């Protein structure tokens, strides 16, 4: 068993960790700075000892309760684990994890990239053939993955899985197979796969080979893998309107994509009414961000041309549209639905089709038995004539859109236009920077409640 309560063992592990840490400082001068090493390992020792007491008491809850009655019971629920982790990071109780996290923290000093992340893994693997403490290490690595931006990278997961020692945990006889063999390791493997699942990373054959090598053909992680492989391919293309994984960086391109997505009409034409001017000579930053991107389909044009110019049209917005983690805002040009007294049904012109009658002169209606339409109460909404996205949601910018629309829809010149704008965000926001994510989320939730 790797896990033990013996303090001596823990001490050795801490020592080992210190060595790993030392090896992780590649840019340090050849004669290692003794002070740095000393402080690092001292800290490690301190934290180790401080945590010993809690470790012993918490141990049972971290293990699988192997029982003959539930030979293939699922690993303990993950929520429990993550709760503990969260708790430990706040209270400072589970310091062991923190030390493994330190490995990453240190590596992250120069850059948080895939290269540094994998280097940490390599260093850990090289340091000790027995891979002592690998379970904790893997948990720590999983936690750090999003920070390094590798949470969606399959090769990294495979590398991480490779940290497990091979063939040690494979049950060798039916009794081992029947009971939960190496429960903590198996649970860790399942957690890793679940992490992949949550980030939508599909395992590949390499993952499978590794899992077989580590846990054997019938281990819990293997079962998890099989379930993943059952559902993931089926769900991969379940969304008929997929959002590209990488959204365009240019706000105009992003607006174009979003508008085409909302319009859902292949005929709809996107027009950029004001391109972002790149020269920073006059107004500096502000002028470089001015743009209005609009979309209108031929059908909408016809609708608008039939609009009664006595009645106003409304510019409304901003309305949010989520594209993966990005929220963008759009504005609509719409009108109120026609009051029933103004609706005129145009009779079919009998002299319209040269070749065949467009309607029959009969009193017979469709038989009820052949009326396949559902009885739906339709709420009538006003027509939407056009959509746009703009660099800012103020009236000045949006009226540029309207004046641009006038070129193709002359009727707008005669129609009163009412701006019904909520105070919205001033620009399209992207959550590419994780630091800003929090306050942005706040902002978005505020918008939603509005």
């Amino acid at each position, binding site marked *: 068993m790797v896990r033990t309560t013996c303090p001596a063992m823990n001490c050795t592990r801490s020592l080992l960790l210190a060595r790993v840490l030392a090896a992780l400082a590649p840019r340090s001068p050849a004669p290692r700075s003794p002070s740095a090493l000393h402080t690092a390992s001292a800290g490690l020792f301190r934290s180790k000892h401080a945590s010993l007491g809690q470790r012993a008491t918490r141990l049972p809850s971290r293990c699988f309760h192997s029982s003959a009655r539930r030979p293939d019971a699922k690993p303990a629920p993950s929520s429990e684990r993550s709760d503990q982790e969260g708790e430990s990071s706040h209270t400072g109780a589970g310091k062991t994890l923190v030390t493994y996290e330190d490995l990453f923290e240190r590596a992250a000093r120069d850059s948080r990239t895939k290269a540094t992340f994998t280097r940490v893994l390599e260093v850990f693997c090289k340091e000790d053939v027995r891979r002592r403490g690998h379970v904790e290490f893997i948990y720590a690595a999983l936690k750090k993955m999003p920070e390094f931006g590798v949470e969606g990278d399959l090769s990294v997961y495979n590398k991480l899985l490779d940290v497990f020692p091979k063939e040690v945990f494979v049950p060798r006889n039916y009794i081992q197979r029947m009971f939960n063999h190496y429960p903590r390791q198996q649970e860790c493997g399942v957690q890793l796969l679940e992490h992949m699942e949550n980030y939508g990373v*599909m395992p*590949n054959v390499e993952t499978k080979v590794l899992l077989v090598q580590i846990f054997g053909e019938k281990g819990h992680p293997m079962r998890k893998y099989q379930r993943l*492989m059952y559902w*993931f*391919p*089926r769900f*991969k*293309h379940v969304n008929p309107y997929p959002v590209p994984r990488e959204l365009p960086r240019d706000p105009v391109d992003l607006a174009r994509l979003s508008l085409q997505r909302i319009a859902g009409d*292949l005929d709809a034409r996107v027009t950029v009414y004001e391109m972002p001017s790149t020269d920073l000579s006059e107004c500096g930053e502000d002028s470089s961000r001015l743009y209005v991107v609009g979309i209108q389909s031929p059908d909408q044009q016809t609708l608008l041309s039939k609009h009664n110019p006595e009645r106003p049209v409304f510019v409304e917005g901003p309305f949010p549209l989520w594209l993966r983690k990005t929220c963008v805002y759009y504005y609509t040009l719409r009108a109120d639905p026609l009051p029933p007294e103004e609706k005129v049904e145009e009779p079919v*012109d009998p*002299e*319209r*089709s*040269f*070749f*065949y*009658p*467009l*309607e*029959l*002169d*009969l*009193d*017979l*209606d*469709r*038989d009820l*038995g*052949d009326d396949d339409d559902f009885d739906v109460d339709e709420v009538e909404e006003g027509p939407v004539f056009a959509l746009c996205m703009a660099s800012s949601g103020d009236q000045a910018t949006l009226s540029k859109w309207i004046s641009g629309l006038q070129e193709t829809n002359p009727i707008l010149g005669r129609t009163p236009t009412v701006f019904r704008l909520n105070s919205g965000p001033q620009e399209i926001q992207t959550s590419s920077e994780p630091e800003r994510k929090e306050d942005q989320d706040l902002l978005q939730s505020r918008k939603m409640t509005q």
Partner: protein
Amino acid sequence: MSLNGLFRVSRAVKSGGKLLNKTCGVGSTDSQSPRFFRTHPRSLVYAKDLFLGNIAKKEVFPYPEISNEELDELNQLVAPVEKFFSEDVDSKKIDEEAKIPPETMSGLKELGLFGMQVPEEYGGLGLSNTMYARLVEIISLDAAITVTLAAHQAIGLKGILIAGNEEQKARYLPKLSSGEHVAAFCLTEPASGSDAASIQARGTPSKDGKHFLLNGSKIWISNGGIADVFTVFARTEVVDKDGNTKDNISAFIVERAFGGITSGKPEDKMGIRGSNTCEVHFENTPVPIENVIGEVGGGFKVAMNILNSGRFSMGSVSAGMIKKLIELTAEYAGTRKQFNKSLAEFGMIQEKFALMAQKAYVMESMAYLTAGMMDRPGVPDCSVEAAMVKIFSSEGAWVCVSEALQVLGGLGYIKDYPYERYLRDCRILPIFEGTNEILRVYVALTGMQYAGKILTGKIMDMKKGNLGVVLEMLGKRLRDTVNKKVDFGLMGKDGVVHPSLMENSKKLEENVYSFGTTVESLLYRFGKTIVDEQLVLKRVADIVINLYTMTAVLSRASRSISIGLRNHDHEVLIANTFCAEAYFQNNYLMAQLEKNSPENNDDSIKKIAMQVLEKRAYVCSHPLDRTF
């Protein structure tokens, strides 16, 4: 029994022939339409009656004939035309150069082929529809010339002929029929194919009120580059009796000499390359008010009449082409040897020839039956029949040419041989003069309208739950299932079909009867919303076309066998084979039209199409794609 029947039929035919002979003499004294047979005037409703489950056998039996004098006259006409086409027309050159040489054109003019249906008093040949059909059968040897001539007289000058007044006729027809002037028909616009509402060309009255100023563009105008006289359709403002102004369509006779007319460059086409097709632009072309055909604002009816009357000839055109093709390919199949056997000995090759012979026979039968019906007195409305002829023969022509090319193997694909030209040329047939899809809707809806008017009362009663009507219906159905005997009198006493075709005439009767019930149930189910059920309409049209073809071949074969035409046994064989197949087709189609029929996949078909069209692309993933 069979002898009796034979006697009866031949008697009927004889008396019919006598009748025709007699009437022809009377008819020729009539100045307006010298070739029309004079019997009592009646409206022709054969195709429409099929929708009610009736066979109006008097309309189609006996098969129409022309008199001996007319036949002699026709043969005298046919001989020089045939000679001209076999000797002086170089189809290959016309196709390659995309132009009919002037000497060929002048030859056509000398033969009088530019005014075949124009009355003699205006310098035309004054042919009846039947004779016209016979002549275009020969002209069809060159598709480019056929189309040029058809654009000139089947639609180009037809407006003047059927709706023009005396002055217009006297002014234009002589020059048109001599070929001095060529006519063109200008209806299609970039935005308007079948939809009159989107016609943009406009005629505005000039200030002095004597002219219309014509503005607009027309596309795909056959003869557009060579024509001197155009029949143009354009919008004009009309004040109706309520005082409202409306934009209605008017038909104008426009001479190129009026000015303001420009033709685009000739379109480079796949087939019928020798015919001239181009855009025609009108810019403030002044058209005198007296050049309006019919009334101002009455152009729609004129256009419809022209289009409806021009179609029937496509049957004999296709038949002529296929007959020629059969000769060419049979020659090849007889001489080409593989494995010490000629191609003609292989079953799969034989099947193709049987198919071609059948199709050609059916096309001919339909074309001349329809032409004969149109030649009857009055103004018989044969537009449904003509549309059916067009649909069947244009599609049949494509199948036959394709099969012929298959017989020829690689040879058919080589440009040095004439065969591939046939394929290119005949591809236009299902497209122009109203696409086959549109004509199917026309055929089906016209019949449905006719039947619906008559059946409405009965169906309303049934829907209201009128017990008497429902019980009567049920009783009838029950009797049908127990002892179904359909007899429309095609056989037996006063029978019109020869006994050697008895079995198939029974099949026709049975089909017609069940078609009547099908139509009734369709009207019950869909009512006037059947307009939107295009797949249903397509099947209905296909059934009627089959019924009409069956009628035509039965009628023709009966006549042939009864008067002892050469090779009539071959005709009977073809007729029986064709009818048997058409009968099965009809049964299948009618089974599909039943409610909740398992044979009917329409919903799925529509769904597939919708999904493809929504994406505007092929939807399925590539077979080599993977998800993991």
